[in-house]
């Protein structure tokens, strides 16, 4: 136990891997308990979470905005659909997800090069164009990409080793829905570990430096363009993986699934959870997946007609958004973290006030107090300054 604590305190990679293992354990437990429908809902949460995680790194840590991440997901989804179309189904599913990630990465690089030259509203405009234009590609190459109806994705059979492993662990058969959910969540965990490590390391510090002050970053020898492009590439790759999981979960890659609405949904997830926090992206994705059907069901149970109940979901969704922005402007996770850091600082200040002899060390404490809320030590992903940007 002591060793674990040791790892937790001193090794970033160790901490992330520990969190990943715990996460995996939770995923296994949850997926073994829930039924097929919940498993598929969780898979939907996973793909929203992966894409929102990528976006939160781009927007929260590097300060670039993207309204086009839904379009980047489309590249991943169509790649998956095309690769799984092969009737022999020889390609292992992990390679399919990887290939989809690489395709989105390539597209993201091209977009990133353009995006690195743009700022604020111009960048938003350019990525908006991406979101609007990409679904058109599928229509233009209708013969190859299935046009309006898109490509149906046939999920290959659950591999024997997965069936065996499931049987070994739980003594039950793995359903396809469970398999899809496992695929989604394992992809999510892998992506999040990679993103968290990048964000905490040298690369992440450069991204933050570029976000916070371009001139000082440049003076410190950081190449602005390179940092921006790399952030966009990483983020696009995450979107590609998410698109791949989406195609497998929805069994379809169709242009109407990747409209501007999807891109805005991702931004919503990021803002709800808290800009720059991976955990926030996950919570935002969870809210967006589970809230609308929940609200519709409540509306239906309360005796509303089907149409009224269906219209209730966007209403509540909007209200939640407004409430979060009013009451927790840094997002759910961001605001909680800030409150915790503030309390810790206050406690430290109180403790310091009690034990210190007056006069000698006061100036030092003052400076500590100012720093503490700004850099929550355990938060790991960003400063509160970033989260309010």
């Amino acid at each position: 136990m002591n060793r674990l604590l040791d790892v937790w305190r001193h090794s970033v990679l160790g901490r992330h891997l520990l969190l990943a293992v715990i996460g995996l354990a939770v995923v296994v437990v949850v997926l073994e308990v829930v039924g097929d429908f919940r498993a598929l809902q969780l898979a939907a949460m996973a793909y929203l979470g992966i894409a929102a995680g990528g976006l939160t790194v781009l927007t929260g840590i590097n300060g670039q905005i993207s309204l086009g991440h839904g379009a980047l997901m489309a590249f991943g989804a169509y790649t998956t659909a095309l690769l799984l179309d092969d009737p022999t189904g020889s390609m292992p599913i992990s390679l399919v997800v990887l290939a989809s990630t690489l395709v989105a990465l390539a597209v993201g690089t091209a977009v990133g090069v353009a995006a690195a030259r743009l700022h604020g509203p111009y960048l938003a405009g350019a990525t908006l164009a991406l979101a609007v234009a990409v679904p058109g590609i599928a229509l233009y190459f209708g013969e190859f990409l299935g046009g309006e109806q898109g490509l149906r994705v046939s999920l290959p059979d659950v591999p024997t080793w997965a069936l065996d492993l499931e049987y070994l662990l739980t003594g039950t058969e793995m359903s396809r829905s469970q398999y899809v959910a496992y695929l989604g969540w394992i992809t999510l965990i892998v992506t999040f570990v990679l993103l968290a490590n990048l964000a905490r390391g040298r690369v992440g510090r450069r991204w933050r430096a570029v976000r916070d002050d371009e001139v000082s970053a440049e003076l410190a020898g950081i190449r602005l363009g390179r940092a921006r492009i790399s952030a966009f590439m990483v983020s696009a790759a995450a979107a590609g993986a998410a698109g791949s999981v989406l195609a497998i979960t929805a069994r379809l890659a169709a242009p109407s699934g990747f409209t501007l609405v999807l891109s805005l949904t991702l931004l919503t997830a990021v803002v709800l959870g808290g800009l720059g926090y991976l955990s926030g992206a996950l919570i935002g994705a969870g809210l967006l997946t589970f809230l609308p059907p929940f609200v519709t069901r409540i509306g239906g149970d309360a005796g509303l007609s089907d149409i009224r109940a269906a219209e209730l979901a966007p209403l509540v969704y909007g209200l939640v958004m407004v409430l979060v922005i009013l009451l927790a402007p840094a997002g759910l996770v961001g605001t909680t973290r800030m409150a915790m850091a503030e309390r810790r600082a206050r406690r430290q200040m109180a403790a310091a006030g009690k034990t210190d002899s007056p006069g000698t060390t006061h100036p030092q404490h003052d400076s500590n107090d100012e720093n503490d809320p700004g850099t929550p030590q355990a938060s790991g992903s960003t400063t509160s300054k970033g989260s309010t940007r």
Partner: protein
Amino acid sequence: MKARLLAPVAGLLTATMILAGCGAGGDRESDSGGDGGGASDVGVTEDTVTVGGHFPLTGVAAPGYSEIPTGAQAYFDYVNAAGGINGRQIEYIVKDDGYNPTNTSQVTNELVLQDEIFAMVGGLGTPTHSAVVDFLNSEGVPDLFVSSGSLQWGDDVESKPYTFGWQPDYEIEGKIIGQYIAENMPKAKVGLFLQDDDFGEDGEKGVRQYLDKQIVGVERYTSGNTDVGPQVAGLQAKGADLVIAFNTPAYTALTQLTSLALGYKPTWFYSNVGSDPQLVGSLLNRFSEGAVEGDNSSLNGVLTTEYIPGVDATDDPWVQLWQEVWDQEGEGGELTNYRIYGMSQAYAFVQALAAAGEDLTRDGLVEAVESFEDVTGPQLAPFRYSADSHMGISGMRVVELQNGKAEELTPVLVSDIGDAPIEEDSSDQASDAPPEGGIPDGS
């Protein structure tokens, strides 16, 4: 560092395995209890049968289409109030997919896996429903009466044994339109205005069988792009004096407004999908911000087709039944053609339930629909269902709209896909009447 990590990680993994083992073991057993009776009677109890459908209740496709399930619901309520079918009340669950195939996939998961519906009834839309048709068939869920005229619901029984179309497919609609024009307007220069998907493609295939030589221009639009100026101007430039349009109601309004602006006055022949005078009228009013009156007379002189009697046919005994159903069970508002569409579909489903008998199974339901020969119903022409074909209604008649009323130009014409000939319907379905009480019996 790696060595330090190994022990705790291994420990945690072991703990998970044990946890997972416990959690799953208990749950699975209770699960299999529910499914124990075999997949065939999911959604059926002694006194209920649960069915569901996906429709656009919100979003751009909602006007009009969101009324279809309200009509079906009203008819199911009417049947339930009279004691249900074989002692079973019909529970009808409607889910909103916003006409987005990705959502359709999600709500269908919910219907099939969570609500455990016995059958899908009237799922709406070609791109939306094609996202779930494979899933429904692999789960063995009867997928009756898809609200779309695409060929794919009925022409491949082998790969989709559980799916059935309902309305006449767009290809036979195209054939009947094509033949009518070839015979009655042999001099017309025909332009085609097509939605750029199965809808337009299937329709064009049918039309070209009869008037390939008369066609002077073809324009396509992508659903969602509301500027049809280039297409309409293109048809005008080609000198088309008759435009056959396979489009949705919103595009009927858009083409009418655009041609008004361009001073282009061809004869318009809209396919059934895009020709509801009530809805197009209200859309015309909305799109033109009140500049165009938008009442029933705005589509005067427009040609179209019909395969079930609409609200304008107040003398038709079926429409009288629908009016009675709507007055008794409807949720307020007027009876509309979309509500009649939903009721007509619901009527066919109730017929299928009654024919499938007391011991209701999914396969039994499919067999019952496959032997739907000569059933009477609101449809003007008989169904084509058999073990080899799941195509829906076999024909329609050509009509001209005047003040919202459809004036018959031809008798009911029937045909089938491919080069099957077009014939006058001999079944006399167009003049039948609903049974006493408005509820079909088992035969």
